[in-house]
C-alpha cells in the first residue's frame, strides 16, 4: 500500500514533535477525495467534488494533548505542524522509537467509484427517482443523494507504530414526500457500505421503493399515542436504540470523567440474560468498518454485553493508557483536523431466538417502532430520545394503524434492563454519528427487540 508520507519523513516529524519533551507523539496524514450529486424535481443538481490533504500532529505530556494541523503534505507543512504542537512544551527532548511498518490489508474495493463516469451516477439517481415515483401518483416529490468518499491515511507514533489504510465508502439516500389532499408525509431510506460502486450494482431501486412505501403508509396515519407501554423496535436501524442508550455510555472518555450512567457497572448485570451485544470494526465491508482505527490500532470485535453482563468499555489510545488496558481499536477522528476520541464502529445486538411475530402477538396494547429518524442521548444522565420515522399501534397482539409524530423517551439503564425479547431476524444499517463536533460513519444492527415498557410521546389529544 502506498504511504502518504515515507518512513524517514515520519521519523523526522515525530522527532521534532518531541523536541521540547512529551510522553507520546503522533503524526496522522490524510488524503480525502469525494464526489456527490443529487436529484430533485427530476433534475440532477449539486454535482460536486472535493480534494483535500493535510496532517495533524499531537504531542501528549502529562494529562495534556497539544495538537496542530495543517493543509498540505509537503515535508515543510508537516514540520510546521510538529513545531506548532511542540511550541507550548518546556521540558527535555525525547527520542521516538524507531518505526516498524505494520502489515495492513485495506478492505477490498471491487469497483473504485472514482473510475465510474459521473453520467453513470446520474443515471443511478434517475433510476431511484423513477422507482420511487413508480409506487404511485401520491408520491409528490423524490430527492435522492449519491455520495462517495475515499480516505487514504498514514499514521506514525513515537511508540514505533507506522501504519496506514485506504478506505472507500459509497452511500445513497432517498427521501420522498407523499401527498393526499391536505395530508403530507415523508419517508426516507439509505444504503451504504465500506465498498465501491459494486454496492449499487444489485438493485438500489429497492431503497427508493421502501422510502416511497413509508411515506404512502403514513398518509393513513393517526396521531401517535402518549404514555408508557411495551415497545417493539424493528431490526437494522432499530439498533440505533442500543447505540444511543448503551454504546455512547461505554465510550471510555465519558466513563473516566464520571459522565456516564455506566460508571462502575463493569461486570454487573445491566440487562436480562438474553442480551448479547458487540462493537465490531471488522465486519466485512460494513459501513462502520476499517482495517485500522485512526490511531493505527487494528480494529476488533469487542463484546460489550455478555448474557446481560457489561463486559467492556470502548477505548482509544489515551483512555486505554489511563485505565492500564489495551486499546479496543475505537480511536476515530472525522479528519486530520480532529483529535481521535473513543467512538463506536458497528454496534449491534446479536440475534436472539424470538420471532418478530411472537414478540408482537404477546403485546395487548403497545407501539411498534419499525425505524427511527435518529436519536440522542446525554450519557451523563442517561436520558435519551428517538424520533420514530415509521411506527404503528399494536392492539390485541396485532399491528394495526400507522402513527405519525411519535418520539420514544426514557433512561438508558431502565430501558436496557427492560429488553425482554430479542429477534432472530438480524441485519445492519448505516448511520452517521455525531460526538464532540465530529461525524463518523457507524453501523447499527439488531433483529426485532422488545422493550417491556417505554414512554411514547405523541400528539394524540
Amino acid at each position, binding site marked *: 500500500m502506498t504511504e502518504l508520507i515515507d518512513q524517514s519523513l515520519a521519523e523526522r516529524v515525530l522527532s521534532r514533535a518531541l523536541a521540547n519533551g512529551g510522553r507520546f507523539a503522533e503524526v496522522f496524514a490524510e488524503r480525502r477525495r469525494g464526489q456527490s450529486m443529487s436529484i430533485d424535481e427530476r433534475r440532477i443538481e449539486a454535482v460536486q467534488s472535493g*480534494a*483535500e490533504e493535510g496532517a495533524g500532529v499531537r504531542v501528549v505530556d502529562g494529562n*495534556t494533548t497539544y495538537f496542530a494541523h495543517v*493543509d498540505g503534505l509537503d515535508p515543510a507543512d508537516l514540520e510546521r505542524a510538529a513545531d506548532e504542537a511542540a511550541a507550548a512544551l518546556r521540558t527535555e527532548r525525547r527520542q521516538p522509537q524507531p518505526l516498524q511498518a505494520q502489515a495492513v490489508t485495506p478492505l477490498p474495493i471491487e469497483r473504485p467509484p472514482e473510475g465510474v463516469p459521473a453520467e453513470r451516477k446520474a443515471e443511478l439517481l434517475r433510476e431511484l427517482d423513477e422507482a420511487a415515483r413508480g409506487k404511485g401518483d401520491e408520491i409528490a*416529490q423524490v430527492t435522492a443523494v449519491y455520495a462517495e468518499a475515499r480516505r487514504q491515511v498514514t499514521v506514525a507514533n513515537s511508540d514505533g507504530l507506522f501504519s496506514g489504510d485506504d478506505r472507500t465508502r459509497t452511500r445513497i439516500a432517498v427521501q420522498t414526500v407523499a401527498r393526499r389532499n391536505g395530508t403530507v408525509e415523508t419517508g426516507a431510506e439509505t444504503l451504504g457500505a465500506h465498498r465501491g460502486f459494486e454496492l449499487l450494482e444489485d438493485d438500489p431501486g429497492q431503497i427508493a421503493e421502501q422510502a416511497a412505501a413509508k411515506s404512502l403508509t403514513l398518509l393513513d396515519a393517526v396521531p401517535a399515542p402518549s*404514555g408508557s407501554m411495551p415497545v417493539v423496535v424493528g431490526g437494522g436501524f432499530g439498533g440505533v436504540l442500543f447505540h444511543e442508550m448503551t454504546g455512547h455510555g461505554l465510550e471510555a472518555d*465519558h466513563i473516566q470523567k464520571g459522565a456516564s450512567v455506566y460508571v462502575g457497572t463493569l461486570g454487573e448485570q445491566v440487562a436480562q440474560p438474553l442480551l448479547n451485544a458487540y462493537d465490531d470494526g471488522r465486519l466485512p465491508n460494513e459501513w462502520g468498518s476499517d482495517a485500522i482505527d485512526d490511531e493505527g490500532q487494528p480494529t476488533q470485535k469487542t463484546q460489550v454485553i455478555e448474557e446481560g453482563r457489561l463486559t467492556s468499555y470502548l477505548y482509544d489510545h489515551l483512555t486505554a493508557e489511563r485505565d492500564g488496558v489495551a486499546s479496543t481499536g475505537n480511536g476515530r477522528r472525522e479528519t486530520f483536523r480532529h483529535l481521535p476520541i473513543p467512538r463506536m464502529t458497528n454496534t449491534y445486538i446479536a440475534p436472539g431466538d424470538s420471532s418478530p411475530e411472537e414478540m408482537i402477538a404477546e403485546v395487548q396494547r403497545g407501539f411498534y417502532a419499525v425505524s427511527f429518524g*435518529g436519536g440522542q442521548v446525554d450519557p*451523563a444522565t442517561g436520558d435519551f430520545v428517538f424520533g420514530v420515522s415509521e411506527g404503528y399501534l399494536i392492539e390485541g397482539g396485532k399491528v394495526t394503524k400507522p402513527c405519525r409524530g411519535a418520539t420514544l423517551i426514557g433512561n438508558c439503564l431502565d430501558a436496557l434492563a427492560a429488553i425482554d425479547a430479542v429477534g432472530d431476524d438480524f441485519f445492519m444499517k448505516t448511520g452517521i454519528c455525531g460526538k464532540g463536533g465530529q461525524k463518523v460513519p457507524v453501523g447499527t444492527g439488531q433483529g426485532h427487540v422488545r422493550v417491556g415498557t417505554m*414512554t411514547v410521546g405523541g400528539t394524540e389529544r
Partner: protein
Amino acid sequence: MSDLSAVARRAVEATVGAGASDAEAYVSREGGRTVRVHAGEVESLEAATQTGVGVRAWHGHRVGYAYGTDLSDDGVREIAGRASEAAAAADEDEFAAPPQPAEVEALPGLSDPSIAEWDTSRVADLALTVERTALESDPRLVGVEVAVYADADEQVAIASSAGVAGEYEASSAYAYLSALAEGEGARETGLGFGLARGPRGLDPEAIGAEGAQRALSMIGAGKPASRSCPVVLDETVAASFAGLIGGGLSAKAVQRGRSPFAGRLEEEVASEVFALFDDGRDPEGPDSAPFDAEGMPRRRTALIEGGRLRSYLFDTYTANREGTSSTGSASRQGYRSLPSVSTSNLVVAPGALSLEQLLAEAGEGVYVTDVAGLHSGVNPVTGVFSVGASGRIIRDGALAEPVREFTIAGELVAMLSVVSAAGAEPRWVPFGGSVSTPPLLVAEMAISGS
C-alpha cells in the same frame, strides 16, 4: 487586494479557461484555537489554520462545484477543471445563472483584536475560570465533564466572471461547559455558554455559574404528568424553535413544497406577539457579514410581523425562480459547500415582560429549559414535532420542582399562533443557527410524561 482575492481571481480565470461560460470562486482562510480543560488542567490545546477554495462553474444553465486545499497554480487549475466537469454532469435548470454584482456596504467591527492579543495561556485561564466557578459554586456540583474555549478568525474573498468581488474578515469566540451535579441518587448535567467576537467579550464566571445553576436546578427531577398546559420556552429552547421556523422560510424549501409555510405569504401564521426577522448585518450578530456566500449584500428582512408571513429568504437561484431579488441569504459551511439558502442572524422581537411576569402569566404549566432530539423529532416538511424536554414545573405562577423525561409535541404553525407573550430580555444563542430571542410563553402545548 489581498492574496486571497488574487487566488479567487486566478480560480475564476482557470475555470473559464477550462470551458465554463461563467465561474465564481470563494476562498477562505481560517486560523483558530481550541482549549479544552478538565479537573483544573488543560486537557487539549489545538492550533490550526486552514485555507481552501470552492469553485462554482456554469455551463449555460448547468452548474457544478469543486473544492480543494491546494492553492498552487496547478492545484487551482485542477479544481477548476473538476468544477467545469461537474457542471457537464448536471441537468439544465433555466433559473441557474451567475449572480450579478450589487453594491455592498462595508460592515466594520466584525474582527476583534483581542483574539490576537490574548496568548494561549490567557485563554486557557479563561477556560479554567469557567470550570472553577462551576466547581466552587455548590458541594453538589461534583464535576465538569468539559469546559471549552475556542476562537477563530476568518478571511473571506469572493470573485466571479460576472464582476462580483469582495472580501471581509470576521472573528468569533465562545466558551461553554457541561457541569455535573449529583443528588437524590441521580446525576444531572447543565450547559453554560457565552458568545462574542473575541475573548474579552466573554464572562467566564457567568458562563460557569450558568452551567452550575442549570445542573443543580435539575436535582430531584421527576416525570411530569401528561397534560396540555401553558409552556414557557427559555431562550435556548426558543432559539431552537426559531431555527426550525427559519428553515421553513427558506425559499428553496417553499418552492419545492417542503415547508409548512409554502403558499402562505401574507397569511396569518402567528399571534401578533411573535415577530421574526433575519438580520445579516446586526452589529451584535455572530453571523453578520457585509455580503452573503455568493457576494450579495446582507440585509434585514421581516419574515413574520403583525402575525402575518411577510417574506421568505432568497438566494440568487430561488429569487430568479420567483422573479424577485436575493435577500442576501446564501450561506455555506466554508469553502467545502455549495451556497444554499439559509438564515443569517434570526431575531425574535422582544416583548415587555420579565421572566417572573411570564411565569406569573403562565400560572400553572411547564418551564422548558432543554430540548433533545430535534434532528429526528421534527418533520421539517409538515412542521409536526415531538421532542424530548426537561425543565421546571410552573406552579402558582412561579418555578417549582424540576422535571425530565417528557416530550413536548405539536405543529410549528399552530404553536406560533398561540405564542401569547415574549420576554423583554433577548439573548444570542448558538442553537438553531445564530438566534437572538427572549423567552416565550406558549399558551398551550401537549406534554407527554407519566
